[in-house]
């Protein structure tokens, strides 16, 4: 039975660091260039060339370490991981082994019950990315593009503290958020700048010893990761319940078939023969350097969330959504800061209308067609009753389409709310007169019909009558007589 088993998951996240040039050479890291047009002699592993460390990656790794309460090593070493593969030009990857730059961090996430749990981060280390192998389009050959070779990676390894696919996703999302907050990575999963491998095992509930784990690779979206992990959990439980043994192996996730399958091993025996890279020297960071990095840290998601709840009196769930991305949080604050409206209302609009509009066009907040200050202007017009909330949605759409500010649109479309009581009374009278049957039924006790009358008045006024006043006047007039 599934509940007899406990799931143990550890995640290894590789995030590409957003530097201009590569970790060990001065070639560009820009995505999407012609094959091998950004692979210099160092990246190609030519005879005689040597690696020189990009200082920016050290700063970025240190800022990540501080953001997850980890120790930033004052001395760390690069090591060679030796294996043969065509997208690995030197026949070894420069990575870190015994002395990584970051160790012993942590991340708080919420479990399914909403409780806060702590996920340990064993280490984070720097390494270089490999190139790409293209298996289609070359007949009986594979084409190798080494543009990506040498792009800096930060490998973040969690303790096996995760207990479900959902927790794994929560952890991953948080790490994703942090690296984007720190501006050390663009976290673009489609482009491969944020990749995840999952180590999954199961053990009988109550057992301390870990079960045999399988490593899942090729997980490039949050959705796929969740499905892959869940498939794998079921697969392992089924094997064990049948009395079999889980093999320690690497498995790929097939998103089309929604299954994991065994991967042909890259190396017969994974003997990487790690040793300190003799072309590179120990990286030494002093207190001053680490403190400077600490001072330059931006407000991190958790702190920002707490502040939003405290400062803006937002609902916690809303604050969480807003602080997922620094850009979105910043946008919200500009709106809230520039508008007289309650911040919660600003939050509702950002999370609601604005996010829907962004999603519809699959664009990011950075490409929003309505600037934060402009949205603030729209909210002010609701707050000062120039327009109703419902009309505001119409205005929003027009603003999104580029028709100008809220005032421009209200002016151009004549959307100002009707608040003149006598004007409303006139229309109410006409509507009551036109619908005597319903008026009688209302007076006879059918209260629900108020909605019908409100609707009719709104229709007559093109939706511009102030709903509050309409309600009040209708009630009064329907009750009289």
């Amino acid at each position, binding site marked *: 039975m599934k509940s007899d088993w406990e799931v143990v998951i550890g995640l290894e996240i590789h995030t590409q660091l957003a530097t201009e040039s590569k970790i060990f050479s001065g070639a560009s890291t820009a995505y999407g260039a012609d094959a091998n047009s950004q692979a210099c002699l160092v990246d190609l592993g030519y*005879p005689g060339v040597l690696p020189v460390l990009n200082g920016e990656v050290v700063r970025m790794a240190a800022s990540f370490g501080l953001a997850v309460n980890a120790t930033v090593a004052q001395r760390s070493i690069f090591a060679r991981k030796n294996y043969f593969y065509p997208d690995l030009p*030197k026949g070894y990857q420069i990575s870190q082994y015994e002395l990584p730059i970051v160790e012993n961090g942590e991340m708080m996430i919420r479990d399914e019950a909403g409780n806060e749990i702590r996920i340990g981060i064993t280490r984070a280390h720097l390494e270089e990315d490999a190139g790409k192998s293209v298996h289609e389009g070359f007949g009986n050959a594979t084409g190798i593009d080494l543009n990506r070779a040498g792009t800096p990676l930060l490998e973040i390894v969690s303790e096996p503290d995760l207990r479900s696919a959902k927790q794994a996703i929560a952890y991953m999302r948080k790490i994703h958020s942090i690296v984007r907050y720190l501006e050390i990575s663009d976290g673009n999963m489609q482009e491969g700048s944020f990749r995840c491998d999952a180590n999954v095992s199961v053990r009988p509930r109550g057992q301390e010893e870990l079960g045999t784990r399988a490593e899942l690779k090729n997980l490039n979206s949050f959705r796929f990761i969740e499905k892959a992990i869940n498939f794998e959990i079921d697969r392992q439980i089924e094997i064990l319940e049948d009395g079999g043994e889980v093999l320690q192996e690497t498995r790929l996730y097939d998103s089309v078939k929604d299954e994991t399958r065994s991967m042909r091993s890259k190396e017969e025996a994974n003997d990487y023969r790690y*040793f300190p890279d003799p072309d590179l020297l120990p990286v030494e960071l002093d207190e001053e350097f680490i403190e400077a990095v600490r001072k330059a840290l931006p407000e991190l998601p958790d702190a920002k969330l707490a502040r939003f709840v405290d400062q803006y009196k937002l609902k916690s769930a809303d604050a969480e959504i807003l602080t997922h991305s620094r850009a979105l949080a910043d946008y919200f604050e500009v709106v809230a800061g520039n508008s007289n409206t309650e911040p919660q209302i600003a939050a509702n609009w950002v999370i609601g209308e604005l996010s829907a509009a962004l999603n519809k066009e699959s664009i990011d907040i950075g490409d929003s067609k309505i600037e934060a200050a402009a949205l603030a202007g729209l909210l002010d017009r609701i707050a000062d009753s120039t327009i109703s909330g419902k009309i505001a949605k119409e205005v929003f759409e027009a603003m999104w389409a580029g028709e100008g500010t809220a005032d421009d649109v209200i002016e151009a479309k004549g959307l100002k709310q009707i608040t003149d009581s006598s004007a409303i009374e006139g229309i109410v009278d006409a509507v009551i007169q036109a619908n005597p049957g319903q008026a009688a039924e209302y007076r006879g006790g059918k209260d629900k019909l108020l909605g019908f009358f409100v609707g009719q008045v709104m229709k007559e006024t093109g939706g511009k009558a102030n709903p509050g006043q309409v309600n009040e006047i209708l009630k009064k007039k329907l009750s009289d007589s």
Partner: protein
Amino acid sequence: MGQDTAALHARSLSELSRGLNEGEFTSRELTESLLQRIDDHQEQLNAFITVTADHALQRADAADKARANGDTGTLNGLPIVHKDLFCTKGVLTTCGSHILGNFVSPYDATVVERINAAGAVMLGKTNMDEFAMGSSNETSYYGPVTNPWNEKLSPGGSSGGSAAAVAARVVPAATGTDTGGSIRQPAALTGTVGLKPTYGRVSRYGMVAFASSLDQAGVITRSAEDAALLLGVMAGYDRRDSTSVDHPVPDYVAALSKPVKGLKIGIVRQHFDEGLDAGCEERIKVALSALKDQGATLIEVDLPNIDLSVPTYYVVAPAECSSNLSRFDGVRFGHRSDNPEDILDLYCRSRGEGFGAEVQRRVMTGTYVLSAGYYDAYYLKAQKVRQLISQDFKKAFANVDVIAGPTAPTTAFAIGEKTDDPITMYLNDIYTIGANLAGLPGVSVPCGFADGLPVGLQLVGPHFAEETILACAHQYQQLTDWHTQGPEDFS
């Protein structure tokens, strides 16, 4: 010494420089003359893998023009040859191997760049043990180099081609590399001067890596003065090499005049044991005596772990090279086997066909000592012993300025004599390896003959003490004329 009337090929770089500046001959004439000599002796010596005649003549003409315009760069118009381990742009760079038999380098090594910038004229790329792995120049894919003193004998290695070319007066100077003695030992066996600088003194960028923490670029010349001249051009910080040291480059030539009087010379007890040939030992002792007569003090020093230097080296160097040579896989450059069945076949056959036996042995040794279960016992252990050996040197240098002794245990040996047992060959480096492990500068100078064959005296100094060892070498060369004596067939 009076006006130079010696034949062009017999003159040192300094002498040639004077001749060019005084208009006695042009760089063109000099270059043509040496190219002819190279050609005349190539069959016997096999010192060259590539001769860059056209390129050299172009450079020589350019140098003559520059001189006419007042450009008297340090090496303007002077001839140089580079060990084929240095990448030279647009020129075949084989590293003595079949796997790079078709490799035309797209860039110049820093050493080559600097020497070019000083105005030198490159005449060719010299033969060497494959990937610098060897002590006799017998592992080269391009055939062995013969010793100009006796063509049945090896000139030593791995910079055998450079040493033979200089000893045969075919060129006055050549670059070399030294990982375990590959400059100093062939210099000793050919009666030339061989200088290995401090680790990090000269850039390794463009010098194809054998053992990264041991490799250093250096020179083979006929005088300490020429070595000082070249070192001044080659040395200095290079941002493209992380292991390059940002240490000021002194005027090595000016420093040569420092007298030997007062110099404290350490004699290593462990050097003078049954491993050292008697004839060599005698020459060394005479040389040391001569220095003592000039006012140096001879002090016995102890390097208690020095006997472990060869086994230490043969763990560390193969380990590093096994990784450094993984890039030779037939994918992006170099030899690729025909019709590979799959990627595994491509790798195994390209490398199996492309690398010679010694290289394969060292790659496998290195793979073994780094492999799971053996790393601690071999690689880690060797690194600790390396620390011990370095500490021994440090302690010794607290009491002495240089350590002097034999460069090699014997004079030149016969080609084919030591190839059966790898260990026998490895023991040729018994006196030189320590300096590589500790990163110390060392120079070998000719100090006489034993059975008609040259013997070398080695001087090793603390880190960045090139001035000290070169000055001592130069002063020794004021007292003696061993360095002016060349093989008769090549006079």
